[in-house]
């Protein structure tokens, strides 16, 4: 499997592969078990973009799990995400189904390369991919499902009527009929039995359906699990998972031998990082480099910090007020954040000048003015620096005066900080358990998102809704999401002027 991946990675021409169309269509159904690696030419750009799109979906699946979304919620969210980033339509669709399936196929294999490196990444990737497969499987039309099931051998034996009769009692006692509406117990029981009579049983080695075994939802005898046809999907999912697990291990073993120029490794590394915070947010790019329209004044920042900051920025801001100084990385992180928030360079100079109370004008002009102007691309290399996103904040080694508090604070300090920062906005001590738990599992951005939801509940933000449906991946996304909500309620107007006066 990997060799082919290598070939693909090297973008070697393989026209022969294109001829491997099965029955005229290379991907007969939307579902794919990803047995065969993609053997076609792609551009580096396609390599990266399609993987990024898939990663967005997978990252959303991950954070959904961390946020305890129910299966229905998850399906809804992910379907929407798929629609947006990686649509996959059935055969009746008029869209470019071959192109869609090709992208799906390709992105899966690119991410395999990115996520095979460590046990942890592999596990998470498998989990997310399996979830995605499940969602797609369930959305799939009946005919496609059937075609898909027939295209593979899942190693099931059918159970004869005599055998079913022999274990009737045991089978029936673990048999759950598909939701029956009958209200009365006796009627429900009768319906269940009737459904059982019609059920066709399959048997597989128990190890193929560990999820059913773990919950004691199947009858086991001699190592064989007797699975009702209804639960057949469980076998399919299990097969998908174990196949992917094996394939990833093989890939991991072979990856160091990847005979590669410097084009792909950075891309892969970047992708692997994406799981930490969700996909690196392209929040800036999407929203324009600067928030335009409203002029932010230096004096309104305190007010803003109180109502709209994520915890990381709040922490920095409080520290600045307390110490009347910030170290370099703190200034960098906060300065860029303010820039993107809409603070002009003139106002920024005013803001910092006022904040550094113990420093003389002379020293300020010598040592800090240049720095501030540099952030705005007015000095030195004159680059338009974007504000740091969560990924950069989380992974930067420098944690004095900056960093992500969800990650760097001890649980006790975090709780205190959260309460003092957000209690006026509606955060209660009882909410902390949930947040602490999330942090404990290293889902820092999920914790941050949850805080956003809690503190904006009064604007009608519900649990699981996040910021317009997306988890926090950027402090500016948090702040501007918060300000937009505020504006909606308090009527357009100039937010900052209103606050100041």
């Amino acid at each position, binding site marked *: 499997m990997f060799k082919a991946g290598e070939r693909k990675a090297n973008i070697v021409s393989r026209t022969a592969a294109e001829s491997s169309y099965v029955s005229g269509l290379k991907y007969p159904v939307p579902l794919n078990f990803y047995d065969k690696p993609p053997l076609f030419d792609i551009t580096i750009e396609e390599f990266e973009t399609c993987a990024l799109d898939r990663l967005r979906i997978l990252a959303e699946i991950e954070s959904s799990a961390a946020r305890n979304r129910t299966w229905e919620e998850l399906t809804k969210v992910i379907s929407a995400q798929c629609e947006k980033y990686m649509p996959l339509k059935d055969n009746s669709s008029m869209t470019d189904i071959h192109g869609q399936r090709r992208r799906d196929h390709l992105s899966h294999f690119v991410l395999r390369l990115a996520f095979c*490196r*460590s*046990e942890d990444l592999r596990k998470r990737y498998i989990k997310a991919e399996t979830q995605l497969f499940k969602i797609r499987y369930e959305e799939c039309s009946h005919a496609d499902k059937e075609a898909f099931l027939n295209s593979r051998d899942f*190693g099931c034996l059918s159970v004869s009527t005599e055998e079913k009769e022999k274990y009737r*009692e*045991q089978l029936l*006692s*673990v048999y*759950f009929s598909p939701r029956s509406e009958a209200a009365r117990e006796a009627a429900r029981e009768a319906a269940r039995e009737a459904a059982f009579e019609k059920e066709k049983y399959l048997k597989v*080695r*128990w*190890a193929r359906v*560990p*999820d059913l*075994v*773990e*919950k*004691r*939802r199947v*009858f*086991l*005898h*001699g*190592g*064989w699990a007797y699975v009702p046809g209804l639960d057949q999907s469980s076998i399919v999912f299990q097969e998908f*998972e*174990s196949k992917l*697990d094996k394939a990833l*291990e093989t890939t*991991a*073993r072979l990856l*160091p031998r990847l005979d590669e120029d410097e084009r792909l490794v950075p891309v892969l590394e970047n992708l692997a990082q994406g799981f930490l915070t969700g996909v690196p947010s392209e929040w800036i790019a999407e929203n324009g480099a600067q928030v335009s329209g409203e002029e932010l004044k230096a004096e309104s920042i305190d007010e803003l910090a109180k109502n709209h900051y994520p915890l990381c920025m709040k922490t920095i801001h409080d520290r600045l007020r307390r110490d009347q100084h910030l170290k370099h990385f703190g200034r960098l992180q906060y300065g860029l954040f303010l820039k993107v928030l809409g603070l002009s360079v003139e106002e920024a100079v005013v803001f910092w000048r006022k904040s550094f109370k113990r420093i003389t004008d002379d020293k300020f002009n010598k040592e800090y003015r240049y720095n501030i102007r540099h952030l705005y691309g007015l000095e030195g290399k004159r680059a338009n620096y974007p504000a740091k996103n969560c990924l950069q904040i989380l992974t930067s080694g420098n944690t004095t005066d900056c960093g992500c508090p969800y990650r760097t604070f001890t649980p006790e300090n975090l709780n205190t900080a959260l309460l003092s920062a957000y209690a006026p906005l509606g955060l209660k001590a009882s909410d902390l358990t949930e947040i602490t738990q999330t942090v404990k599992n290293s889902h820092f951005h999920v914790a941050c998102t949850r805080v956003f939801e809690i503190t904006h509940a009064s604007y009608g933000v519900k649990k699981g809704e996040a910021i317009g449906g997306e988890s926090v991946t950027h402090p500016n996304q948090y702040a501007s999401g918060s300000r937009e909500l505020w504006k909606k309620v308090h009527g357009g107007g100039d937010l900052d002027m209103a606050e100041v006066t």
Partner: protein
Amino acid sequence: MANQIDSSAPEAMLMFYRKLYPFKSIYNWLNHDQMPTKLFTHREFAFTLQGDVYLRYKSFNSAEDLKKDICHLNPTRFEIGPVYSARPRDKKTIRPGGLTPLLRELVFDIDMTDYDPVRTCCSEANICKRCWAFISAAVKVLDHSIRDHFGYEKLLWVYSGRRGIHLWISDKEAMELTDQQRKAIVGWMNVVSIGSKEASKRLNIRTASKVLPPPIQDALVQLVSTFTDLILEDQDCFASESGYETLLEFIPNATVVSNLRNAWEKDPERSSEDKWEDLKQQVKQVDRNSPQRVQLKQAMEDIILHYTYPRIDAEVSKHRNHLLKAPFCIHPKTGRVCVPVDPSKIDEFDPEKVPTVSQLLTELDEFIPVDGEEKPSDEDLVERTSLRPYVQMLDQHAAGLMTVKRETKQDPDAALTW
């Protein structure tokens, strides 16, 4: 003279390894073959040396190799881990991630400490013949379930040297199980959640249907007699006030609880048997078809399971890379050898009759002075001690594994029954 040898003394330990430890049998059992295979050479061993120094990732080419190193380092005990994708001893030279566990016997660990809340005779590290009855009940249930539900046959039960028992399952399919599958099998088995006190009251068996799942129903039938003999008669679990209060906590019906409590407070001498009888009487008075009656009946089932169902140390079984003490090691506190146990004779097994190192060495000492005999070879030495039947048990088990292996070699299709 006979009892002068200190079982935990390093010299005694060394002598035991040199003269008595059945390295060859262990090798056959792990390797499934005469010629060294990856099952042995890529297998991790971990030694605990004197002074709690812990050495991991050791691996050996052969039984002799293992013996040499053990006699050299003289560990107080050693553990057996999984078969890795490479030789564990090369760990430092293999690139990171190159050493992954592949195969491993499916293991279970039952430890008496988990039974502390329900045993009255001893507590913590102590064990007597009486509390062994908990273990033997557990062994019967687990042994039956593994064979009947999961279809495994190559089971080796090993006394852990003090207060527990280990199970090693060497069937090919069992060896190949992934961590996730191991977790599933533990989920299937586990009923009593061990851990915090509150959690231990709830059993994870009732699903939406409220009926006991068939495997648990099976086990319950086996356990009813154990409950009467062990819990009610022998351990007399509900005699004390705290004992019967624990019992009452299981009962979901306030009237029944207060009736019973009143009766028992008046007559503190009532035996557990009588109290159980009282409970039955109370339940009988509840209307036969009422939901309360059903609830109470279920509560009684739960009680029986809570007190007698196997309490498995789940963490040991869940991961392939969990290390477990090798059979025939010496337990450092008791000096007893971790000997294999025949599950069909589990009731007769008495942990206090298991040979200790000092006893075995004494047996050896007493034997050697016999005149006119050649100096016996190392293998023969075991024959002269009371360790012999246990080594034979392991040899038989290993022979069974080697037969299977041979048959698979000759006819590869024979193993592919699934």
